[in-house]
């Protein structure tokens, strides 16, 4: 992902607004089989995207989600959440879960 001024503005606009729902999911005629994957802060920049919907077929753990959505090895210090709860990489992931990857937090 480029990190020029336009890109920074785009990112700012993205998190200035409240959480946006992804555009139409990977919906089939009769069933939604998808996992929402979110990337934040430096991890978002590293992987070049903020959100992706993936088919849940063949996904069993958080590690599987990372490998399906990125081309880089899982960073040692990355934090992971499933449905907004901190988890470890081995955590099971199911259809319709929301999985997030992000760096150490720096609020306060």
């Amino acid at each position: 992902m480029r990190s020029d001024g336009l890109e920074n503005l785009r990112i700012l606009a993205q998190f200035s607004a409240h959480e946006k729902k992804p555009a139409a999911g990977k919906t089939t005629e009769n069933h939604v089989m998808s996992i929402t994957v979110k990337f934040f802060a430096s991890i978002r920049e590293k992987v070049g995207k903020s959100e992706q919907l993936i088919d849940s077929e063949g996904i069993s753990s958080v590690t599987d989600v990372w490998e399906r959505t990125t081309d880089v090895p899982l960073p040692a210090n990355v934090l992971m959440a499933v449905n907004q709860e901190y988890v470890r990489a081995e955590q099971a992931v199911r259809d319709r879960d929301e999985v997030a990857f992000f760096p150490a937090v720096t609020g306060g």
Partner: protein
Amino acid sequence: MAVSLRDEAFDPWAALSAYQAAHPEWAGRVGATAVFVGTMRDFNQGSAVQGMLLEHYPAMTGRYLERLCQEAMSRWDILDTLVIHRYGELAPNDPIVLVGVWSAHREQAFAACRYLIDELKTRAPFWKQEATDEGLRWVSPDD
């Protein structure tokens, strides 16, 4: 117990007064109010900082801040907690976070306030990005 996430500058002292005024039932019961206000500096790691972008995970931050307040309420004998945290674009001197704790006694209020800000800094999913002369840079937890 109240948690609020704001995308615009806020006055922590006005927020404290307003919250306390909204709880007349505390009258005569509050012996201590412990307050922490975190404010944006205009320097960090030897560089001048012109501005900050504070990113967060909206679906998770509110939930975690509420959980921390519940933990504080159950661990200490306190009357109430108020946490306000900014996100979005900040300028130097802007308040970033307010933690207020009301209690009958100071030991409980101090301990709960310290717990809330320390836990918030290690568990709530916020990420600071500073604008310096060299460009944007992510703040590390050790900065």
